[in-house]
């Protein structure tokens, strides 16, 4: 009959004199050491992915990966990347012997809705870690919530510099790469293939991610000798980019860089090709189009138009390392098609969280965070990877890809043209593009 009444902040205990509540003895005030400390034989993880809105398919793929990860953590299935993971503390008996359970929510790709569903998972379902998401706005918003709530946030697909830059949080961790890394990896390949004397024209989605992507790729290409003719912001809601594309014809630009994602990218690329940009010859050079961040799932919407277009990606199923092969096999066998980069990062994040708990031997977010900070691992598909302590960003090789000319199947859209080594994409934690925020102190909640 103890612990019937507990008082805590949404996520953290307020120091309250409970004298005001002169209640019978069934009420006791028992503070946990941290938010949603698992009691009993199970632990609950919260997977917050877009289930409606334009990124719903990516969200669905993330959810598949999460389910697979939970299966593997609980010792079902073939174990996937657990076999190739450099850390061997996970034994397929859940996390610290507690069976892994999960709850899901719909972010709707809106920061409000995402926070609401994350809150419900924390408040109602007792989730101790939140993961998932397919856009940076949502990632930053949910990361802020998790910081205040005192749970760990293992972000899904988020590519903006801000997530581990000015909006970084002690309780938040990002495995996915970022805009700076895309620029740093892509620029040398572009220079190699298209020369160092190029004039670039940028179309940029007019919101935070678009801006950091533009800033990054612009800096990286200019460092190699390219000039930037113009950078033009396009409304997020735009579906017809013709009025942004035709002005390019008037300039002497010979490269178009589309800092667009998802539907924006599909439409702007399709339409740019329709306008014959790729058939143009400017300054005696073939006109080229570049898409700095590829999403294979969504790029299918652009059909043939992606052929030969360079971009970058966090991971691709066609990689030949053991980790990737194990994951693709396990995922492909279960669902019948290869996983997307979003699925991969979500799967890996779940494993990394579980592993950190197991190594720390504690679910306390501060202990988990400490175990993740500065942790170096391998065997999860990206080669040797470091979770940097200073900003909770993973540092690993980045893939430069190109739209494949002769795809063998509907999944075979991209080919990896270069694996840019991690050193080339590493930056100082106080790099100007990432400056302005601080991790703060880790918050265990209650």
């Amino acid at each position: 009959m103890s612990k019937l009444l507990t008082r805590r902040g949404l996520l953290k205990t307020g120091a309250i004199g409970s004298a005001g509540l002169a209640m019978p003895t069934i009420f006791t005030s028992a503070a946990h050491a941290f938010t949603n400390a698992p009691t009993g034989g199970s632990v609950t993880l919260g997977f917050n992915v877009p289930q409606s809105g334009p990124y719903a398919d990516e969200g669905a793929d993330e959810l598949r990966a999460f389910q697979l990860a939970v299966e593997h953590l609980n010792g079902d299935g073939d174990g996937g990347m657990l076999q190739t993971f450099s850390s061997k503390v996970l034994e397929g008996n859940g996390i610290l012997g507690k069976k892994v359970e999960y709850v899901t929510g719909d972010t709707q790709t809106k920061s409000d809705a995402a926070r609401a569903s994350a809150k419900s998972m924390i408040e109602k379902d007792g989730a101790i870690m939140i993961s998932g998401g397919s856009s940076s706005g949502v990632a930053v918003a949910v990361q802020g919530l998790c910081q205040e709530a005192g749970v760990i946030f293992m972000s899904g697909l988020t590519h903006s510099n801000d997530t581990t830059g000015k909006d970084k949080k002690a309780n938040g961790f990002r495995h996915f790469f970022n805009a700076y890394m895309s620029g740093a990896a892509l620029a040398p390949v572009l220079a190699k293939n298209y020369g160092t004397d190029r004039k670039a024209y940028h179309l940029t989605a007019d919101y935070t991610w678009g801006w950091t992507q533009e800033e990054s790729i612009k800096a990286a290409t200019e460092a190699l000798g390219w000039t930037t003719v113009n950078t033009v912001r396009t409304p997020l809601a735009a579906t017809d980019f013709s009025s942004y594309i035709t002005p390019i014809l008037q300039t002497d630009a010979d490269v178009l860089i589309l800092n667009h994602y998802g539907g924006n990218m599909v439409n702007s690329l399709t339409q740019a090709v329709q306008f014959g940009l790729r058939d143009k010859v400017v300054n005696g050079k073939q006109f080229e189009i570049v898409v700095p961040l590829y999403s294979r799932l969504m790029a299918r919407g652009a059909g043939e138009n992606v052929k030969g277009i360079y971009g970058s990606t966090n991971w691709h199923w066609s990689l030949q390392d053991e980790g990737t092969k194990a994951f693709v096999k396990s995922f492909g066998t279960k669902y019948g098609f290869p996983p997307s980069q979003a699925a991969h990062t979500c799967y890996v994040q779940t494993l990394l969280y579980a592993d950190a708990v197991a190594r720390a031997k504690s679910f306390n977010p501060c202990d988990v965070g400490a175990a993740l900070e500065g942790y170096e691992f391998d065997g999860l598909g990206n080669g040797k990877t470091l979770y940097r302590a200073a900003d909770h960003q993973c540092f690993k090789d980045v893939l430069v890809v190109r739209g494949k000319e002769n795809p063998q199947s509907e999944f075979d859209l991209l080919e990896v043209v270069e694996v840019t080594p991690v050193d080339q994409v590493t930056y100082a934690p106080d790099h100007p593009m990432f400056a302005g925020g601080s991790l703060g102190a880790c918050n265990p909640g209650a």
Partner: protein
Amino acid sequence: MDAIILQILNGLDKGSAYALIALGLTLIFGTLGVVNFAHGALFMIGAFCAVTLNKILNLSFETLDPTRTDFLGNPLKVKTPYVESWFGPDVGAAIIDWSVPLAILFSIPVMIAIGFIMERGLIKHFYRRPHADQILVTFGLAIVLQELIKHYFGANQIATPAPDAFRGSFDFGAMLGLDPNVIIYPYWRLVYFAFAAVIIGGVFAFLQFTTFGMVVRAGMADRETVGLLGINIDRRFTIMFGIAAAVAGMAGVMYAPINSPNYHMGMDFLVLSFVVVVVGGMGSLPGAVLAGFLLGVLESFASMNAIKSLIPGIDQIIIYVAAIIILLMRPRGLMGRKGVMED
């Protein structure tokens, strides 16, 4: 100068999409007095007619190719569309290539049927209900339709290319003896523009020169009087609903190569098409068309760099700014009639 010509072309092209959607919406507004929030969904379903036909034509049988492997290392399943095996690879491929134009034929009966079912099954019960109720029920319907599409086609955009013959651009500059490769415009967008012009002209001609159209126009002007004349206006209105659905659907089919369809595209167009219709003036078909082109051209000009650098963000809001200014200067939009949806 080149830039301005190109932006006018862009504006007319955008405008023709707006005008086509607004035209159907106004037909429903004007004839039936129904605020149809599901009209965007009809546009979207039209686009998915193109996707569906493409999928049907691509129905394939699989053969195993042991020399190649799929992503799991199993022998690759090579898909051959039935049409290619029936008509030979060349003809088959050509049929698939032309799936979007073919989808126009496919979409007309489908859309008319959907329109009939919608009107008879649901909308007709709402003629005498407040506009608010009409909004709620058609919005509910729009959600249901798009969720069904999402369930069967997924949320991502689906590439629906135009035939190869229309790939590439027409060089206006070279035709006029100017520098080549400056004033160029994609063939498919020109086709879209011409198509819109034909449809708009067709609808107007139909309303202007047929007895049916005359009755409908009379009904738009004064429904009760026409009813008193003993003309069964309801049946005609059902047909008009079917026609409006077909117009929206065809607009969607033709738009598919420009904007790869996804289940959400109807909602994206919904608000915009309402603005267009209202700016044109409630109940006025020419107004809707005029407003569509006007807003399309304004939007194109607003996205020019020179103007954007003058007023940052103007391209984000130009449609709404224009709508506000027009509605404040002209109380009933460009060509609206008095007393239509003013209370």
